[in-house]
């Protein structure tokens, strides 16, 4: 079985994001970019399936500007076999990403597509669900455990509001990763070197027959109200007194 993983380039999780003074977006100049952490988990899961002999080929796909190729290289260094880069400088919103990924799926015919449950920049948490809808496939979102069965089904354990839930889905299907699915590996130096020789195909939205024009217009980006530090109390007794008599919350 072939697996497709969607990997997104985002501002690194450790960067303190700053809103631009003109309110048009966030500062991205000279800011460290990385693969979205949930996409690292997606790639890791695909690589583990291949190591377990359940998967024959892993294709890593990223959509966006020229630098997204670096994110694909990261996936290739982790163990993906080849890459597809859908190149565009248009701002991509989840519906457009899902349509583009669908076009790639139609060409590649994988048995499973793995995405992150959310990208930590735009925090939309939509793309996987949208992709499975467009494909007419089942969706197994927020996954913390995947078992591929022999009869063209899979059991997926999902992180839900009350705890965990297990569903059975037919293959092919779309899965989105939650934090507890696995711990992604660091690529080794030899694998980073090897990844440089792995192929990355470039495609455009036009070639895929998709119009990626955004549906949502960003009118303004602003800083949230700042919370200021309060006081330090000296003892538990003082804390309880303040909560009772000053804040009046207990």
């Amino acid at each position, binding site marked *: 079985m072939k697996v497709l993983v969607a990997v997104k380039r985002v*501002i690194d999780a450790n960067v*303190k*994001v*700053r809103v631009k003074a003109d309110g048009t977006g*966030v500062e991205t100049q000279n800011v460290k970019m990385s693969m979205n952490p*949930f996409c690292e988990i997606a790639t890791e899961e695909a690589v583990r399936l291949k190591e377990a002999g359940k998967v024959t080929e892993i294709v890593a796909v990223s959509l966006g500007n020229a630098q997204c190729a670096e994110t694909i290289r990261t996936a290739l260094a982790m163990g993906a076999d080849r890459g597809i880069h859908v190149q565009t400088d248009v701002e991509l*919103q*989840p*519906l457009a990403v899902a349509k583009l990924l669908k076009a790639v799926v139609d060409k590649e015919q994988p048995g499973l597509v793995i995405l992150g449950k*959310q990208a*930590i*920049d*735009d*925090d*939309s*948490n*939509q793309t996987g*669900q*949208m992709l499975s*809808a*467009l494909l007419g496939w*089942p*969706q*197994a*979102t*927020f996954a913390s455990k995947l078992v591929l069965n022999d009869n063209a089904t899979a059991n997926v354990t999902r*992180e*839900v*509001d*009350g*705890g*965990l*839930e*297990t*569903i*059975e*889905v*037919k293959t092919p299907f779309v899965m989105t990763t939650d*934090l*507890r699915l696995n711990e992604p590996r660091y690529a080794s130096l030899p694998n980073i070197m090897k990844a440089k020789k792995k192929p990355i195909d470039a495609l455009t939205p036009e070639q895929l027959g998709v119009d990626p024009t955004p*549906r949502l*217009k*960003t*009118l*303004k*980006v*602003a*800083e*949230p109200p700042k*919370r200021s*530090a*309060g*006081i*330090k109390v000296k*003892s*538990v007794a003082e804390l*309880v007194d303040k*909560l009772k008599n000053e804040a009046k*919350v*207990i």
Partner: protein
Amino acid sequence: MSILVLAEHDNASLKSATLHAVTAAQKIGGEIHILVAGAGAQGAADAAAKVAGVAKVLLADDAIYGHALAENVAKLIVGLAGNYSHILSAATVNGKNILPRASALLDVQQISEISAVESADTFVRPTYAGNAMTTVQSSDKIKIITVRATAFDAAAETGGSAAIEKVASGGDAGLSKFLGQEVQKTERPELTSARIVVSGGRGMQSGENFKMLEEVADKLGAAVGASRAAVDAGFVPNDYQVGQTGKIVAPDLYVAVGISGAIQHLAGMKDSKVIVAINKDEDAPIFQVADYGLVADLFTAVPELAKELNK
């Protein structure tokens, strides 16, 4: 304009998240309908009919909706969508699972986790772990929206007397099946709607030590939460996680114990009214947002707190 709000419920009763989504719908303005898709869900529909400001309740009662499988509920919503200008849900796990699927089927770009309504087509949503508040305007015919419950007050549970209309099942998509669940039974309030939350982090060192926090929580009638580090370490189950990629809470009082205050954790609790931090490191970032900070070893401070609350 008519607005459809997808109910979050357990068949017998309505979850409070729905009440917050109703308030967001009221801010948009228009006739509000609640969709209850469930199995044996008359109880939830009755509760929905009493919510203030609701004009009609649609009840789709079928075994296939028993576990809110996205493939089936999205199909149902698509069938109803033609009558509505807006379709809303609270940004619960179910809402996040179902609405994007319905959106894609309707060729609509969903607007995720709004925190404010500017007009019928313009909304504010937190991005970058709440570090950038983005105002977006939608050009889609139907607006499909998930709502951050903590950003809107709850609509009154009573005062309404909406009619309940049965709607036909949308049918089984036949793509997925519910097999089972592991859900912790607890007498404590739900994390996302509790008035007080007591959370522990890596500093707790073990699941066993969380008993200390539970004791404090029970004295306060509080829910227990955790940082990602505490969940990853297996101290507590996944549904305890507060943060950017866990649950968003905004209680009257949030007590963070042995939690450093990473951006991703703050994203889930910084809108709490009063924040207390107990940490042995006086430079921990959590103190930058805490109203009351106590620099202390939690293993002495927490038992002391339990005792002090007995007084």
